[in-house]
């Protein structure tokens, strides 16, 4: 390392590794891919490594939590040292440890650990288990980096890395073209949404002459009055990126397609990591968000539209895994609203609180969904209908998850959601436009959540399983993922039936994994291993009692003044809606309340209202442009390559002047004499 000017001392290159727990929180998961790829050759070994390291990562997070609670945590530990990019700008690359980030870190660690345990069972005979476990480790590390980042560039690093890992996870079963397409789409959509992110970060950082989060916030808090437009622009850039990562309107369509990934991947992406990252990042900058009304308003509108729309879509989905996906969109929007409606000088606690509770119950639900889907080899309504009646052992945990999702007291979901509604109501009374919009949307979404949670529950416990179509072929577990491949997407969309399944038989392929797995050792497959089940139970427990966290000093929320009327009215309406859904489900084949809705609406909803076509329409001109550019390039190249011919033609023409006759030479000499003479006289 003495390559520099011989001036390197330990301080410039020191990785500042008076190793803090905060470092370990990031590094331990990051070590998983390294060790798994380098050291292990077999799945079992990979499992040992990844489970151990992710547990240690969780332990480090808990240690950090303990430290933070005692007030002994290092607030901003360095990482790889300051980047030297000239005197006028500093890139310290510090981490930032505060109470909210520590809480999120623990949640992330926990979910990741549970996912690692569960994955071993879920992908027992998958030849690419090692890669999957490694990717999950990297994913966790990236999220932890975003969570603990105290520097805009570190945030960007984690942010982009997560996008990449999601690509790898969604495309895990790359034998299936749908998985390949879904992965491509997910990455591209989020990456397109990220385009303004770099610009936004550049505005913030270059204004503050530092990428340090604290400096940035301090600078812009003071500068906001004078540079209101710049701040709004920067925040809007960030909101665009957040909308992309968190699958908000108009980037929402990648998320349901991401269900092509194995279920543990979905649990990880949806519960604690990628989609929640937007909340984390905006939470870190919430002080600036408060100062910019346009940014707040845009965020509110985006989140409200996404929340309600996703709620409706969730209710209409034919595939229950996709129902959960849309519910994620809706719940993440809720978190973002929690940030949008904050009062001045309040923290991001509301949004983070919902992030935490959502992480618990959504991870639980997704992992349970994975469990059930293995049992019945599918995730559509036909397959899952009545599954809980058949396997009552799963009933309790699914129930807890759904209750928490619906926001029934005293589950965690209720607590965090109620706090946001409370705050929105208060803001609305104070005359804040954003808060009013948010409140209206929240009112709708509470009911929608109750409705789709109820619908799912009713389907799962439906008792008339005998009527189920015993199709021998494995049912396609989701609709045809539309192409976002920039080139191939121009291929026409395959026709789909009312459930969104392709009509063209050639396109529909049997899902391979389930077939293979059912022939495997049944004991292994009936239920996950002990560790995984422990993880699930832990998640369930936290979903139940997680709400208690608001009483701890770690969260700074106002729980002492609950609005009793609001809660009461809400619960009453939720009950009514649940009853309505129950009534709708009566007499349907699969206990599906949505069966009462016209088929074409359901079909359209299953296709996400064909937003995909808009994406295609947006991308098509780019492809056209690429073709145009290629053609132009061909012209340019042909032009260059024609130069030899041109010179040959010139030579031919000149050669005609060279007649081999002495007189021609004499003529040339005379002409030259005159020309040179003229030049001499004129141009000397």
């Amino acid at each position, binding site marked *: 390392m003495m390559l520099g000017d011989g001036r390197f001392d330990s301080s410039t290159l020191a990785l500042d590794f008076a190793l803090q727990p905060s470092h370990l929180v990031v590094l331990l998961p990051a070590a998983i891919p390294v060790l798994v790829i380098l050291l292990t050759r077999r799945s079992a070994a990979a499992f040992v490594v990844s489970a151990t390291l992710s547990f240690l990562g969780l332990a480090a997070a808990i240690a950090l939590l303990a430290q933070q609670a005692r007030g002994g945590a290092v607030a901003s530990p360095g990482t790889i040292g300051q980047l030297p990019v000239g005197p006028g700008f500093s890139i310290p690359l510090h981490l930032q440890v505060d109470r909210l980030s520590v809480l999120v870190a623990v949640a992330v660690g926990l979910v990741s650990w549970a996912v690692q345990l569960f994955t071993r069972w879920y992908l027992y005979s998958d030849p690419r288990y090692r890669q999957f476990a490694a990717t999950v480790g990297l994913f966790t590390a990236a999220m932890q980096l975003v969570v603990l980042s105290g520097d805009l560039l570190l945030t960007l690093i984690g942010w982009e890395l997560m996008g990449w890992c999601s690509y790898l996870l969604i495309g895990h079963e790359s034998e299936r073209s749908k998985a390949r397409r879904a992965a491509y789409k997910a990455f591209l959509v989020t990456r397109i949404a990220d385009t303004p992110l770099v610009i936004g970060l550049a505005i913030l950082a270059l204004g503050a002459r530092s990428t340090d989060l604290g400096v940035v916030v301090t600078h812009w808090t003071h500068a906001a009055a004078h540079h209101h437009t710049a701040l709004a622009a920067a925040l809007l850039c960030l909101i665009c990126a957040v909308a992309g990562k968190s699958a908000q309107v108009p980037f929402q369509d990648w998320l349901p397609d991401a269900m092509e990934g194995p279920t543990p991947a979905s649990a990880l992406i949806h519960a604690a990591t990628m989609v929640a990252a937007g909340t984390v990042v905006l939470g870190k900058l919430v002080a600036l968000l408060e100062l910019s009304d346009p940014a707040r308003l845009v965020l509110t509108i985006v989140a409200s539209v996404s929340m309600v729309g996703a709620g409706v879509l969730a209710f209409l989905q034919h595939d229950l895994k996709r129902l959960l996906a849309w519910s994620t969109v809706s719940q993440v929007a809720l978190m973002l609203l929690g940030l949008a409606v904050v009062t001045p000088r309040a923290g991001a606690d509301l949004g983070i609180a919902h992030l935490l509770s959502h992480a618990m119950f959504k991870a639980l639900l997704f992992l349970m969904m994975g469990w059930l889907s293995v049992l019945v080899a599918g995730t559509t309504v036909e397959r899952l209908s009545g599954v809980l009646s058949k396997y009552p052992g799963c009933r309790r945990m699914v129930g807890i998850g759904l209750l928490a999702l619906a926001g029934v007291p005293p589950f965690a979901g209720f607590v965090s959601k109620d706090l946001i509604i409370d705050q929105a109501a208060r803001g609305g009374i104070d005359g804040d436009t954003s808060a009013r919009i948010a409140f209206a949307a929240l009112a709708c979404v509470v009911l929608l959540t109750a409705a789709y949670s109820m619908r799912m529950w009713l389907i799962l416990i439906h008792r008339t399983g005998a009527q189920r179509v015993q199709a021998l072929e494995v049912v396609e577990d989701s609709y045809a993922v539309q192409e976002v491949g920039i080139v191939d997407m121009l291929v026409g969309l395959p026709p789909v039936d009312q459930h969104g399944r392709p009509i063209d038989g050639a396109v529909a392929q049997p899902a391979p994994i389930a077939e293979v797995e059912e022939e495997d050792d049944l004991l292994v497959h009936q239920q996950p291993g002990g560790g995984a089940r422990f993880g699930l139970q832990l998640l369930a427990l936290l979903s139940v009692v997680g709400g208690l966290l608001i009483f701890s000093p770690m969260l700074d929320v106002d729980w002492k003044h609950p609005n009793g009327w609001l809660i009461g009215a809400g619960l009453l309406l939720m009950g009514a809606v649940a009853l309505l859904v129950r009534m709708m489900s009566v007499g349907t084949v699969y206990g599906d309340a949505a069966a009462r809705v016209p088929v074409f609406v359901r079909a359209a909803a299953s296709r996400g209202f064909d937003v995909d076509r808009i994406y295609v329409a947006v991308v098509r001109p780019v492809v056209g442009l690429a073709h145009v550019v290629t053609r132009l390039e061909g012209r340019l190249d042909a032009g260059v390559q024609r130069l*030899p011919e041109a*010179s*040959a033609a*010139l*030579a*031919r023409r*000149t*050669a005609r002047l*060279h007649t*081999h006759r*002495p*007189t*021609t*030479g*004499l003529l*040339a*000499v*005379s*002409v*030259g*004499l005159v*020309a*040179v*003479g003229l*030049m*001499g*006289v004129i*141009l*000397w």
Partner: protein
Amino acid sequence: MKLTYHWWLLAPVLIPAVGCVLLLVLDALLPRLGRSHWAIAAVLLLAGAAAAVPGVLPSADDPRDTLCLPHGGACLYSVDHVGAGLQLAALVSGAVIALLALPIRVPAERAAVQATLLLAATAGATGVVASRDLGSWLVMLELATLPAIALVALRARRAAVDGALALLTTALVSFAITAMGAALWFAATGSALLSGDAVLHAAQDPDSRRILVLAVVFILAGLGFKLSLVPFHAWTPEAFSGASVPIGGFLAVTSKIAALAALLVIFRGVTVLGTSALAAVGVLAAVSMTLGNVMALRERNALRFLAWSTVSQAGWVVLPLAAVSSRAVRSAAAYLMVYALATLVVFAVVTALAHADGRADATDLSSYGGLLRRRPLLAVTLALGLLTLMGLPPAVIGLVAKVAAIGPVAGGRMWILAVIAALNAMLGVAVYLRWLRILFGARKDPEHADALHPLHRILVIVGAAALAVTSIAPQWLLQFVGR
């Protein structure tokens, strides 16, 4: 009235001149001497070269004058470092040409005449370098030119006499133009001396200044023929392809040295004017480079190819002179040195090949196919020579020459000319790459192939070594033209 004489200073001119007479006498006495006339000529030329060596040593006076008018008057013969270098180059190249011609079988009576003519022409080339008055300048210039015409004609084939006729007519007209230019010079300066004082004197008066300019461009036009600058070049391909191969080399090298030397004598006088640029030179250089390269691009005959390459290289040689400065004079001389060396090496290879495989095979470019595998020595040497002309490493010396040529132009901020030069550097690479690719390409065996003549082999090896050595240490060659 008495002139001072320093024989040792005049020796480089006198030895070949006297040798020329001696050779004629010898031929009369011993008519059966045959081809050994060439050997005698080579020895004489080398002796002349040896006499020129003291002038290039760094310790030598600069300039060294003789034939000075009394009472501190002007000197009619003056050799500075650049001049001495050019003399040396002319003599050595003449000697090499003589050695190259040695093994070629010609009728015995013709060898003597040819050797004599070669000596005479080389003497002219050597003399013109040092002449400082119009009279000796004109005489020496013609001494360098007329024997060359005869040398071309002496091959006595139809193509040779055609080439000689083209060369002759152009030479006659050009000489008339040069003479006219000389007369104008005399009219402008009122003095037959080519010194800077006279020029300065003439430049005072606007009228005579205008006449002086006209004189310079007339002389330029007249010398343009000898340098084969476009549009005075039409004879070049005809003469090159008509003459025997070594004589082609003589036209390409020694003759060029004489021409540039003559031009430099005039230029040295003009530099005192302090004019920054001479547009006519720039235009001629640009046109010559471009046309020469473009024509060479489609030429299939090796000798005509070399002729066109000479045309374009002539453009490079005079390029620096577009900026009128003493640095430009040195740069032009430096480029000429490198050009002479490389061209001589190429001609040596072609001569050797023509002698071994027959002229038809040596003149057809396509018959060089796979020479690398057939005759690696010739191929590598030829490649080195071509690379030097291209100005690409490993022939660093060619690169250095390019630096020297562009330097004054860039220094004088003649951007357009510089850009044209750059384009021509590219074109030049395209030109020589054609030949180079053939060398490395598919093998094509001639109908009969003899072994190389030992003398040719030695010359080729020496040439390759010279290029290699100067590529490693370019200063060894460049120091001949002063610093």
